[in-house]
């Protein structure tokens, strides 16, 4: 169950950890956009190199990143294979109806693979080095302009942080319910499709009922501590823009400039 990487923050003291969450979020989006400007081996090479630098800078073992990619590996393989088979080319090496393989389609497939890998890596960097609360805070800061349109930014950020906070809790709960039902003779993940769907009921009913109980308890606790919706409140941690954020933005601008220069 713990191969699920999202919401699993790894504490650390690296430069990336020290960046403010809003800067990391922004640069994460920026990196994804830069990835779509890459269109030849050289540009992908530059991005891969920057990615390796970023991963090294986090000081987190590469194993965590591999674990982040593993759950998505089938999606990546599927997309890459489809891309290879359905890319049309004038001189294919192999053809069968609409399917073909050529040098061109293999290269496009390789690009798609790189894109997936880079996007997953950069978002894994974000989730591994930023606490869930930090991410929610970053979202709140970035969405602040929407307040002018009376959009409830603070409430949204609170909802987001509560949701993120409860992911690990509910995962642990699911694990313990699965164990309890296993010892009552449920065989999860085996048997016919009908049996598999049926075996989800003894898991989902307690999980939902537990989630509702958590929600009720949490709202009682919030009431007890005087929570009022959309009231301006101060924060325990204030993330401002720091020097390191400015440096990171500069580095990204440089990467973007290089990519624009050497793309076809």
């Amino acid at each position, binding site marked *: 169950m713990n191969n699920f990487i999202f919401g699993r923050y790894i504490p650390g003291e690296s430069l990336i950890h020290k960046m403010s969450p809003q800067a990391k979020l922004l640069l994460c989006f920026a990196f994804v956009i830069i990835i779509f400007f890459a269109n030849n081996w050289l540009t992908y090479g530059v991005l891969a190199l920057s990615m390796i630098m970023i991963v090294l800078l986090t000081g987190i073992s590469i*194993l965590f990143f591999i674990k982040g990619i593993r759950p998505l590996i089938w999606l990546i393989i599927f997309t890459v294979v489809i891309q290879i088979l359905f890319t049309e080319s004038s001189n294919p090496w192999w053809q069968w109806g609409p399917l073909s393989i050529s040098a061109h389609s293999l290269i496009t497939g390789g690009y798609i693979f790189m894109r997936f890998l880079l996007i997953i890596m950069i978002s894994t960097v974000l989730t591994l080095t930023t606490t869930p609360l930090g991410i929610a805070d970053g979202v709140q800061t970035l969405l602040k302009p929407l307040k002018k349109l009376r959009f409830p930014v603070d409430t949204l950020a609170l909802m987001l942080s509560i949701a993120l906070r409860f992911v690990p809790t509910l995962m642990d*709960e699911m694990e*313990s*319910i699965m*164990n*309890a039902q*296993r010892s*009552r003779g449920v065989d999860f993940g085996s048997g016919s499709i009908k049996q598999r769907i049926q075996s989800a009921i*003894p898991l989902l*009913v307690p999980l939902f009922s537990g989630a509702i109980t958590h929600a009720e308890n949490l709202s009682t606790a919030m009431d007890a501590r005087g929570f009022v919706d959309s009231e301006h409140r101060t924060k325990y941690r204030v993330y401002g823009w720091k020097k390191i954020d400015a440096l990171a933005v500069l580095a990204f601008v440089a990467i973007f400039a290089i990519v624009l220069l050497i793309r076809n």
Partner: protein
Amino acid sequence: MDNAVEFKEVSHVYQADSPMAADALSNVSLSIKAGSFTAVIGHTGSGKSTLVQHINALLKPTAGEVKVLGKAITPDTSNKNLKSFRKHIGMVFQFPEKQLFEETVLKDVMFGPKNYGESEQNAELLAKEALNMVNLPAANFNKSPFDLSGGQMRRVAIAGVLAMKPEILIMDEPTAGLDPRGHHEIMNLAKRLNAEGVTIILVTHQMNDVTNYADDVLVMEQGKLIKHDGPRKVFSDPTWVVDHQLNLPDSASFALELASQGFNFNELPMTIDELADSIAGGSMNE
């Protein structure tokens, strides 16, 4: 067959091959006699829960061999046939009321027996028998389990395990959060089952329960078994007990207080009755 459970050099590493790998059990060898009432004690995080989950094959050892009721589990055992292995082993988890899901109390208790192949009628008989054992009034049988009180939900969940007629019953802190009466009822139920020949394995922080009910004690610390002895022997050395961050039973700590004021005890009393007897028959140092 004398031993219900045997561990041979069992180790368990959580998330092996990952940066988060953590030793939960290291090189544990032990045997639990059939028909015994064994208590597993130890500090939080000492590996108690990990240990008992091996008995039910919810966890497989990463090294070594676990033998339960004559069947062995090794790191190579396939995940496919564990269901038949679990049939004779009941497991009551911490806060077992979380496992309730059916529309009615009766249906929920029938769930286990039906999974292990009992017919509808048989399962119903077993369920009613189990619900009687936990003293749940028949008026509640057709209620939704979610409409019951916390204590009643706990008893329904325990009945759901008892209905499978386990030969070994593992209880992981079954009385956490219950009032004294509920606590007493559940511990007495365990005692009664034990008298009927069920092997009981109780994970607990309540040292009073250990001396009142158990006849064998496993003490865990940092994934290792540091003592395996009768309750009297385990608690006979108060300094050792305190050094390993455990508590003494109330009667023993009460007796120690008295002893520090000059009261003589031939032997440290382990239960309230023993304490009362030795006070009645004891003498003060003058």
